């Protein structure tokens, strides 16, 4: 299992090891709820229900190929451009692969 995306030792942005945290639906600790990992079929269901799809790769990667309907908000610009997203709709993010 690739360490950068799946390892239980992965460290969240707030510096908290994710293996110290509950899964969604569990008892929240530290006031943090983990984002939910989904597969291809769940993605199709969610976007069919109105979720917004966000590719966080650089613009040239997005221009090369992206999922239908996805918008591009590169990771480095996420904080500055998060306001472009609709807070009333679920968000699905993706990059190239597990790594």
């Amino acid at each position: 299992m690739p360490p950068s995306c799946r390892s239980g030792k992965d460290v969240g942005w707030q510096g908290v090891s994710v293996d110290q945290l509950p899964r969604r639906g569990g008892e929240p600790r530290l006031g943090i709820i983990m984002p939910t990992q989904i597969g291809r079929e769940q993605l199709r269901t969610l976007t069919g229900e109105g979720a917004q799809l966000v590719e966080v790769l650089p613009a040239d990667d997005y221009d090369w190929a992206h999922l239908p309907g996805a918008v591009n908000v590169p990771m480095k610009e996420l904080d500055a451009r998060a306001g472009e997203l609709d807070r009333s709709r679920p968000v699905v993010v993706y990059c190239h692969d597990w790594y």
Partner: protein
Amino acid sequence: MSPRAAWRLEAAGFGPVYDYMAGKADWLAADLPFEGTAWLVGMFTRRGVATVAEGTPVAEALGLLEAQGFGPVLVVNGAGVVMGAAYRDKLAAASREAAVGTVMRFGVSTVRPSEDAAALADRMGHRKVTRVVVTRSDGTLVGLFFAEDMHG
């Protein structure tokens, strides 16, 4: 990268936030539609190619080959997974009543529809390969990619 983005958006008050961790590579390898400038193998793959089961009689497979005009005939199981390929010379040399599975080639090389088409055609040229079987990441058949189809 996407886990960090998902966490960041959750923390910024978005919700719910989902992370499609297998990402674009998984989507494209599944032969699903995409937008962009890429020229991928799936765009040039011949679809609806002749398929048979391992138990199909050789005579039937030969008939499909003749109707299609190019080969090989691909041998798939009930789930659509490519199990092998049957070539004209082997089929023609076999009893017409024999099962295709007795003359098919196992271990056929495959590529994903998400590969760059020009790069694959270039590799095929160097190896003097004219066609290659295209399958999704789960092994199910997409079709046949002919390098010559890249040129119009």
